[in-house]
Protein backbone atom coordinates (compact mmCIF):
# COMPACT_ATOMS: atom_id res chain seq x y z
CA UNK A 1 0.00 0.00 0.00
CA UNK A 2 1.13 3.53 -0.57
CA UNK A 3 1.67 5.92 2.27
CA UNK A 4 -1.46 7.78 1.15
CA UNK A 5 -3.49 4.61 1.40
CA UNK A 6 -2.07 3.81 4.81
CA UNK A 7 -2.92 7.17 6.36
CA UNK A 8 -6.69 6.79 6.68
CA UNK A 9 -6.31 3.23 7.94
CA UNK A 10 -3.90 4.33 10.63
CA UNK A 11 -6.22 7.18 11.52
CA UNK A 12 -9.09 4.74 12.04
CA UNK A 13 -6.98 2.51 14.23
CA UNK A 14 -5.79 5.39 16.38
CA UNK A 15 -9.38 6.52 16.79
CA UNK A 16 -10.56 3.13 17.93
CA UNK A 17 -7.65 2.34 20.19
CA UNK A 18 -8.28 2.88 23.90
CA UNK A 19 -4.63 3.23 24.79
CA UNK A 20 -2.02 5.13 22.80
CA UNK A 21 -1.13 2.82 19.92
CA UNK A 22 2.49 2.41 18.86
CA UNK A 23 3.98 2.13 15.39
CA UNK A 24 4.88 -1.45 16.22
CA UNK A 25 1.26 -2.29 17.01
CA UNK A 26 0.08 -0.53 13.88
CA UNK A 27 2.56 -2.44 11.76
CA UNK A 28 1.39 -5.70 13.30
CA UNK A 29 -2.17 -4.91 12.29
CA UNK A 30 -1.10 -3.84 8.81
CA UNK A 31 0.55 -7.11 7.93
CA UNK A 32 2.97 -6.83 5.09
CA UNK A 33 3.68 -3.14 5.36
CA UNK A 34 7.18 -2.08 6.30
CA UNK A 35 7.77 -0.25 9.56
CA UNK A 36 9.29 2.62 7.63
CA UNK A 37 6.16 3.05 5.54
CA UNK A 38 3.94 2.87 8.58
CA UNK A 39 6.11 5.41 10.39
CA UNK A 40 6.14 7.73 7.40
CA UNK A 41 2.39 7.48 7.05
CA UNK A 42 1.92 8.16 10.77
CA UNK A 43 4.20 11.19 10.60
CA UNK A 44 2.39 12.65 7.62
CA UNK A 45 -0.95 11.91 9.17
CA UNK A 46 0.07 13.72 12.34
CA UNK A 47 1.08 16.79 10.42
CA UNK A 48 -2.05 16.91 8.30
CA UNK A 49 -4.37 16.08 11.17
CA UNK A 50 -3.02 18.84 13.37
CA UNK A 51 -2.82 21.38 10.56
CA UNK A 52 -6.58 21.26 10.42
CA UNK A 53 -6.56 23.20 13.71
CA UNK A 54 -9.81 21.61 14.72
CA UNK A 55 -11.06 20.53 18.12
CA UNK A 56 -8.94 17.39 18.12
CA UNK A 57 -5.23 16.82 18.04
CA UNK A 58 -3.11 13.81 17.25
CA UNK A 59 -0.25 13.41 19.65
CA UNK A 60 2.36 10.98 20.85
CA UNK A 61 1.97 9.76 24.39
CA UNK A 62 3.77 6.95 26.17
CA UNK A 63 5.32 5.80 22.90
CA UNK A 64 2.06 5.64 20.98
CA UNK A 65 -0.39 7.78 19.05
CA UNK A 66 -3.58 9.14 20.54
CA UNK A 67 -6.34 11.48 19.48
CA UNK A 68 -7.51 13.85 22.19
CA UNK A 69 -9.62 16.94 22.43
CA UNK A 70 -7.71 20.18 22.68
CA UNK A 71 -7.37 21.50 26.24
CA UNK A 72 -8.83 24.86 25.16
CA UNK A 73 -12.26 23.31 24.87
CA UNK A 74 -12.24 21.35 28.09
CA UNK A 75 -14.94 23.52 29.60
CA UNK A 76 -17.44 22.48 26.96
CA UNK A 77 -16.42 18.86 27.04
CA UNK A 78 -16.89 18.83 30.79
CA UNK A 79 -20.37 20.22 30.37
CA UNK A 80 -21.23 17.33 28.17
CA UNK A 81 -19.55 14.72 30.31
CA UNK A 82 -20.79 16.39 33.48
CA UNK A 83 -17.44 15.43 34.91
CA UNK A 84 -15.42 17.06 37.58
CA UNK A 85 -11.68 17.52 37.28
CA UNK A 86 -10.13 14.53 38.97
CA UNK A 87 -8.58 14.86 42.40
CA UNK A 88 -5.27 16.62 42.24
CA UNK A 89 -2.16 15.15 43.69
CA UNK A 90 -0.89 16.74 46.87
CA UNK A 91 2.36 18.65 46.87
CA UNK A 92 4.01 15.85 48.84
CA UNK A 93 2.86 13.26 46.33
CA UNK A 94 4.04 15.35 43.40
CA UNK A 95 7.48 15.92 44.86
CA UNK A 96 7.84 12.26 45.76
CA UNK A 97 6.77 11.39 42.23
CA UNK A 98 9.33 13.80 40.82
CA UNK A 99 12.10 12.13 42.84
CA UNK A 100 11.03 8.71 41.62
CA UNK A 101 10.69 9.85 38.03
CA UNK A 102 14.22 11.23 37.85
CA UNK A 103 16.01 8.71 40.01
CA UNK A 104 14.28 5.49 39.08
CA UNK A 105 14.61 2.74 39.98
CA UNK A 106 14.78 3.85 43.58
CA UNK A 107 14.01 2.41 47.01
CA UNK A 108 11.92 4.01 49.73
CA UNK A 109 14.88 4.69 52.06
CA UNK A 110 16.63 6.43 49.18
CA UNK A 111 13.56 8.59 48.58
CA UNK A 112 13.53 9.49 52.25
CA UNK A 113 17.18 10.50 52.07
CA UNK A 114 16.54 12.91 49.23
CA UNK A 115 13.29 14.41 50.42
CA UNK A 116 14.14 14.60 54.08
CA UNK A 117 10.52 13.79 55.00
CA UNK A 118 8.78 10.44 55.24
CA UNK A 119 6.36 10.09 52.39
CA UNK A 120 4.74 6.70 52.88
CA UNK A 121 1.19 7.96 52.36
CA UNK A 122 2.30 9.77 49.23
CA UNK A 123 3.82 6.54 47.92
CA UNK A 124 0.65 4.66 48.69
CA UNK A 125 -1.37 7.24 46.78
CA UNK A 126 0.99 7.01 43.82
CA UNK A 127 0.74 3.22 43.82
CA UNK A 128 -3.04 3.33 44.06
CA UNK A 129 -3.19 5.66 41.10
CA UNK A 130 -0.81 3.38 39.23
CA UNK A 131 1.57 6.24 38.58
CA UNK A 132 4.42 4.22 40.03
CA UNK A 133 5.05 0.50 40.00
CA UNK A 134 7.36 -1.91 41.74
CA UNK A 135 10.28 -2.82 39.57
CA UNK A 136 11.95 -5.65 41.37
CA UNK A 137 14.28 -5.69 44.34
CA UNK A 138 17.61 -4.05 44.90
CA UNK A 139 20.31 -6.65 45.35
CA UNK A 140 21.54 -5.48 48.70
CA UNK A 141 20.92 -6.57 52.27
CA UNK A 142 17.22 -6.63 52.96
CA UNK A 143 16.39 -6.67 49.24
CA UNK A 144 14.27 -3.52 49.38
CA UNK A 145 11.67 -2.92 46.71
CA UNK A 146 12.60 -0.71 43.78
CA UNK A 147 10.08 1.74 42.33
CA UNK A 148 9.76 3.43 38.99
CA UNK A 149 7.14 5.28 36.97
CA UNK A 150 4.53 3.49 34.92
CA UNK A 151 3.03 3.96 31.48
CA UNK A 152 0.05 5.60 33.15
CA UNK A 153 2.47 8.16 34.54
CA UNK A 154 3.52 9.13 31.03
CA UNK A 155 -0.08 9.41 29.89
CA UNK A 156 -1.16 11.39 32.95
CA UNK A 157 1.54 13.98 32.42
CA UNK A 158 1.39 14.09 28.65
CA UNK A 159 4.85 12.66 28.09
CA UNK A 160 5.96 10.48 25.21
CA UNK A 161 8.84 9.06 27.17
CA UNK A 162 11.03 9.90 30.16
CA UNK A 163 13.37 12.04 28.09
CA UNK A 164 10.58 14.61 27.88
CA UNK A 165 10.84 15.30 31.60
CA UNK A 166 12.01 18.86 32.24
CA UNK A 167 15.72 19.21 32.84
CA UNK A 168 16.49 19.17 36.56
CA UNK A 169 19.39 21.56 36.16
CA UNK A 170 16.99 24.25 34.98
CA UNK A 171 15.68 24.54 38.50
CA UNK A 172 19.04 24.83 40.15
CA UNK A 173 19.56 28.53 39.73
CA UNK A 174 16.26 29.78 41.08
CA UNK A 175 17.94 31.07 44.19
CA UNK A 176 21.32 32.13 43.05
CA UNK A 177 20.28 35.05 40.87
Amino acid at each position, binding site marked *: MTVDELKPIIESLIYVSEEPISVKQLAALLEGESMDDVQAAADQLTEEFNARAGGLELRQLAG*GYRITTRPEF*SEYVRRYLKSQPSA*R*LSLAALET*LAVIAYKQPITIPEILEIRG*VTSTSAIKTLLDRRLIVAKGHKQVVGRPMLYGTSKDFLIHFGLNDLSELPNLEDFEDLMTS
Partner: protein
Amino acid sequence: MKEGLSQETEQSGTAETQSEFAETTDQYKVKLSMFEGPLDLLLYLIRKEEVSIYDIPIARISEQYLEYLRAMEELDIGVAGEFLVMAATLIHIKTQMLLPRDPDAPLEETEDPRNELVYQLLEHQKFKGAANVLHQRAMMEAAAFTRASMDEDTDNPEVAATVFKLFEVFKEVMDRRQAISEMEIVRDEMTMAEKIAEIKLMLNNSAEVSARTLFERARSRREMVLIFLSVLELVKGLAIRLTQSEIFGDIVIVKREAA
Protein backbone atom coordinates in the same frame (compact mmCIF):
# COMPACT_ATOMS: atom_id res chain seq x y z
CA MET B 1 -17.54 56.16 87.10
CA LYS B 2 -14.33 57.05 85.52
CA GLU B 3 -13.06 53.62 86.23
CA GLY B 4 -16.12 52.08 84.71
CA LEU B 5 -15.67 54.10 81.53
CA SER B 6 -12.06 53.30 81.18
CA GLN B 7 -12.82 49.66 81.75
CA GLU B 8 -15.31 49.74 78.94
CA THR B 9 -12.92 51.31 76.51
CA GLU B 10 -10.34 48.82 77.53
CA GLN B 11 -12.65 45.92 76.79
CA SER B 12 -13.78 47.23 73.42
CA GLY B 13 -10.18 47.99 72.67
CA THR B 14 -9.24 44.42 73.39
CA ALA B 15 -12.11 43.12 71.29
CA GLU B 16 -10.86 45.05 68.30
CA THR B 17 -7.31 43.86 68.68
CA GLN B 18 -8.59 40.35 69.18
CA SER B 19 -10.43 40.27 65.89
CA GLU B 20 -7.48 41.91 64.19
CA PHE B 21 -5.23 39.34 65.72
CA ALA B 22 -7.55 36.58 64.64
CA GLU B 23 -7.38 37.80 61.06
CA THR B 24 -3.62 37.94 60.96
CA THR B 25 -3.46 34.66 62.85
CA ASP B 26 -5.46 32.98 60.13
CA GLN B 27 -3.18 34.45 57.52
CA TYR B 28 -0.19 33.25 59.43
CA LYS B 29 -1.76 29.87 59.89
CA VAL B 30 -2.35 29.49 56.17
CA LYS B 31 1.13 30.64 55.32
CA LEU B 32 2.88 28.51 57.91
CA SER B 33 0.95 25.33 57.22
CA MET B 34 2.09 25.62 53.63
CA PHE B 35 5.55 24.54 54.66
CA GLU B 36 5.36 20.91 54.04
CA GLY B 37 8.79 20.23 55.39
CA PRO B 38 11.73 21.97 57.05
CA LEU B 39 13.54 22.31 53.74
CA ASP B 40 10.58 24.25 52.33
CA LEU B 41 10.69 26.61 55.27
CA LEU B 42 14.43 27.10 54.92
CA LEU B 43 14.17 27.83 51.22
CA TYR B 44 11.48 30.36 51.97
CA LEU B 45 13.62 32.05 54.62
CA ILE B 46 16.66 32.13 52.37
CA ARG B 47 14.63 33.78 49.64
CA LYS B 48 12.99 36.18 52.07
CA GLU B 49 16.30 37.26 53.57
CA GLU B 50 17.72 37.50 50.06
CA VAL B 51 20.85 35.60 50.93
CA SER B 52 22.78 33.23 48.77
CA ILE B 53 22.11 29.56 49.17
CA TYR B 54 25.81 28.94 48.73
CA ASP B 55 26.75 31.15 51.64
CA ILE B 56 24.00 30.93 54.19
CA PRO B 57 24.38 33.18 57.24
CA ILE B 58 23.61 30.36 59.62
CA ALA B 59 23.17 32.47 62.73
CA ARG B 60 20.57 34.71 61.15
CA ILE B 61 18.71 31.96 59.35
CA SER B 62 18.59 29.66 62.39
CA GLU B 63 17.20 32.48 64.47
CA GLN B 64 14.46 33.15 61.94
CA TYR B 65 13.76 29.45 61.65
CA LEU B 66 13.37 29.03 65.40
CA GLU B 67 11.10 32.07 65.53
CA TYR B 68 8.87 30.53 62.92
CA LEU B 69 8.75 27.30 64.86
CA ARG B 70 7.75 29.19 67.98
CA ALA B 71 5.06 31.04 66.08
CA MET B 72 3.77 27.77 64.68
CA GLU B 73 3.51 26.31 68.12
CA GLU B 74 1.77 29.39 69.46
CA LEU B 75 -0.72 29.32 66.65
CA ASP B 76 -1.39 25.72 67.45
CA ILE B 77 -0.07 24.35 64.21
CA GLY B 78 1.32 20.92 64.84
CA VAL B 79 5.05 20.99 64.29
CA ALA B 80 6.16 17.71 62.78
CA GLY B 81 9.22 15.98 64.18
CA GLU B 82 11.22 16.74 61.06
CA PHE B 83 11.05 20.46 61.80
CA LEU B 84 12.57 19.90 65.21
CA VAL B 85 15.29 17.70 63.79
CA MET B 86 16.16 20.50 61.37
CA ALA B 87 16.19 23.01 64.23
CA ALA B 88 18.71 20.83 66.03
CA THR B 89 20.73 20.46 62.82
CA LEU B 90 20.85 24.23 62.33
CA ILE B 91 22.01 24.82 65.87
CA HIS B 92 24.60 22.11 65.45
CA ILE B 93 25.93 23.72 62.28
CA LYS B 94 25.99 27.09 64.00
CA THR B 95 28.07 25.78 66.87
CA GLN B 96 30.42 24.03 64.49
CA MET B 97 31.01 27.29 62.68
CA LEU B 98 31.67 29.11 65.93
CA LEU B 99 34.28 26.64 67.07
CA PRO B 100 37.82 27.56 66.10
CA ARG B 101 39.29 25.37 63.42
CA ASP B 102 41.79 22.79 64.60
CA PRO B 103 45.14 24.19 63.35
CA ASP B 104 46.68 20.72 63.25
CA ALA B 105 43.98 19.12 61.15
CA PRO B 106 44.76 18.87 57.40
CA LEU B 107 42.89 21.33 55.22
CA GLU B 108 40.84 18.73 53.38
CA GLU B 109 39.21 17.55 56.58
CA THR B 110 37.89 20.91 57.62
CA GLU B 111 34.79 20.88 55.50
CA ASP B 112 32.25 23.65 55.63
CA PRO B 113 29.63 22.32 58.07
CA ARG B 114 26.93 23.84 55.93
CA ASN B 115 27.76 21.76 52.88
CA GLU B 116 25.43 18.87 53.48
CA LEU B 117 22.55 21.19 54.18
CA VAL B 118 23.25 23.22 51.06
CA TYR B 119 23.32 20.05 49.02
CA GLN B 120 19.98 18.97 50.48
CA LEU B 121 18.47 22.37 49.80
CA LEU B 122 19.63 22.41 46.19
CA GLU B 123 18.32 18.92 45.57
CA HIS B 124 15.02 19.75 47.21
CA GLN B 125 14.69 22.89 45.14
CA LYS B 126 15.31 20.99 41.94
CA PHE B 127 12.63 18.44 42.65
CA LYS B 128 10.24 21.10 43.80
CA GLY B 129 10.70 22.90 40.51
CA ALA B 130 10.23 19.69 38.56
CA ALA B 131 7.13 18.84 40.60
CA ASN B 132 5.67 22.20 39.70
CA VAL B 133 6.20 21.67 36.01
CA LEU B 134 4.70 18.19 36.27
CA HIS B 135 1.70 19.67 38.02
CA GLN B 136 1.11 22.09 35.19
CA ARG B 137 1.44 19.36 32.62
CA ALA B 138 -1.07 17.24 34.50
CA MET B 139 -3.51 20.14 34.47
CA MET B 140 -3.14 20.43 30.70
CA GLU B 141 -3.54 16.70 30.22
CA ALA B 142 -6.62 16.59 32.39
CA ALA B 143 -8.21 19.04 30.00
CA ALA B 144 -7.60 16.77 27.01
CA PHE B 145 -10.20 14.05 26.65
CA THR B 146 -10.32 10.84 24.68
CA ARG B 147 -13.27 9.17 23.06
CA ALA B 148 -15.46 7.15 25.43
CA SER B 149 -14.93 3.42 25.69
CA MET B 150 -16.38 1.24 23.03
CA ASP B 151 -18.35 -1.81 23.97
CA GLU B 152 -16.28 -4.93 24.29
CA ASP B 153 -16.84 -7.50 21.64
CA THR B 154 -18.24 -10.10 24.01
CA ASP B 155 -20.16 -11.79 21.27
CA ASN B 156 -16.98 -12.55 19.42
CA PRO B 157 -17.02 -16.32 19.08
CA GLU B 158 -13.25 -16.48 18.83
CA VAL B 159 -12.71 -15.00 22.25
CA ALA B 160 -15.44 -17.01 23.89
CA ALA B 161 -14.27 -20.20 22.30
CA THR B 162 -10.71 -19.84 23.55
CA VAL B 163 -11.81 -19.57 27.16
CA PHE B 164 -14.17 -22.49 26.71
CA LYS B 165 -11.41 -24.55 25.17
CA LEU B 166 -9.15 -23.72 28.08
CA PHE B 167 -11.79 -25.04 30.38
CA GLU B 168 -11.93 -28.23 28.38
CA VAL B 169 -8.22 -28.80 28.89
CA PHE B 170 -8.67 -28.05 32.54
CA LYS B 171 -11.52 -30.53 32.84
CA GLU B 172 -9.62 -33.16 30.94
CA VAL B 173 -6.65 -32.99 33.29
CA MET B 174 -8.95 -32.86 36.28
CA ASP B 175 -10.80 -36.00 35.13
CA ARG B 176 -7.55 -37.84 34.62
CA ARG B 177 -6.51 -36.88 38.11
CA GLN B 178 -9.67 -38.30 39.63
CA ALA B 179 -8.67 -41.67 38.31
CA ILE B 180 -5.56 -41.63 40.47
CA SER B 181 -6.88 -42.64 43.86
CA GLU B 182 -4.20 -41.13 45.92
CA MET B 183 -3.35 -37.53 45.59
CA GLU B 184 -0.78 -35.86 47.68
CA ILE B 185 -2.43 -33.53 50.15
CA VAL B 186 -0.30 -30.43 50.05
CA ARG B 187 -0.91 -27.52 52.31
CA ASP B 188 -0.90 -25.05 49.49
CA GLU B 189 -1.28 -21.49 50.67
CA MET B 190 -0.39 -19.90 47.39
CA THR B 191 -2.45 -16.85 46.56
CA MET B 192 -3.69 -15.86 43.14
CA ALA B 193 -1.31 -12.93 43.03
CA GLU B 194 1.57 -15.31 43.58
CA LYS B 195 0.30 -17.70 40.95
CA ILE B 196 -0.03 -14.88 38.45
CA ALA B 197 3.53 -13.79 39.21
CA GLU B 198 4.70 -17.36 38.80
CA ILE B 199 3.07 -17.72 35.40
CA LYS B 200 4.54 -14.40 34.28
CA LEU B 201 7.97 -15.57 35.36
CA MET B 202 7.56 -18.80 33.41
CA LEU B 203 6.72 -16.78 30.32
CA ASN B 204 9.84 -14.70 30.82
CA ASN B 205 11.94 -17.83 30.77
CA SER B 206 10.36 -19.53 27.78
CA ALA B 207 8.47 -18.00 24.86
CA GLU B 208 5.34 -20.04 25.42
CA VAL B 209 3.86 -22.31 28.02
CA SER B 210 1.53 -25.23 27.44
CA ALA B 211 -1.70 -24.89 29.38
CA ARG B 212 -1.93 -28.65 29.76
CA THR B 213 1.54 -28.85 31.31
CA LEU B 214 0.62 -26.07 33.67
CA PHE B 215 -2.45 -27.93 34.88
CA GLU B 216 -0.68 -31.26 35.11
CA ARG B 217 1.98 -29.79 37.31
CA ALA B 218 -0.55 -28.67 39.87
CA ARG B 219 -0.24 -30.52 43.11
CA SER B 220 -3.80 -30.18 44.25
CA ARG B 221 -7.27 -29.50 42.98
CA ARG B 222 -7.13 -26.07 44.59
CA GLU B 223 -3.97 -25.24 42.70
CA MET B 224 -5.56 -26.27 39.44
CA VAL B 225 -8.48 -23.96 40.03
CA LEU B 226 -6.03 -21.23 40.98
CA ILE B 227 -4.14 -21.73 37.72
CA PHE B 228 -7.34 -21.58 35.72
CA LEU B 229 -8.46 -18.35 37.36
CA SER B 230 -5.00 -16.81 37.08
CA VAL B 231 -4.84 -17.54 33.38
CA LEU B 232 -8.26 -15.97 32.89
CA GLU B 233 -7.16 -12.92 34.83
CA LEU B 234 -4.04 -12.58 32.73
CA VAL B 235 -6.06 -12.86 29.53
CA LYS B 236 -8.47 -10.24 30.79
CA GLY B 237 -5.58 -7.96 31.69
CA LEU B 238 -4.24 -8.44 28.18
CA ALA B 239 -0.97 -9.77 29.56
CA ILE B 240 -1.21 -13.07 27.68
CA ARG B 241 -2.82 -14.62 24.66
CA LEU B 242 -4.19 -18.12 24.25
CA THR B 243 -3.62 -19.93 21.00
CA GLN B 244 -4.60 -23.32 19.74
CA SER B 245 -2.95 -24.66 16.61
CA GLU B 246 -5.37 -27.52 16.02
CA ILE B 247 -9.01 -28.06 16.92
CA PHE B 248 -8.53 -30.32 19.92
CA GLY B 249 -4.91 -29.56 20.40
CA ASP B 250 -3.20 -28.19 23.41
CA ILE B 251 -3.71 -24.57 24.30
CA VAL B 252 -0.56 -22.55 24.37
CA ILE B 253 -0.09 -19.49 26.54
CA VAL B 254 1.91 -16.76 24.92
CA LYS B 255 3.08 -13.51 26.46
CA ARG B 256 1.42 -10.49 24.93
CA GLU B 257 3.82 -7.91 23.64
CA ALA B 258 3.64 -4.68 25.58
CA ALA B 259 3.02 -1.60 23.44
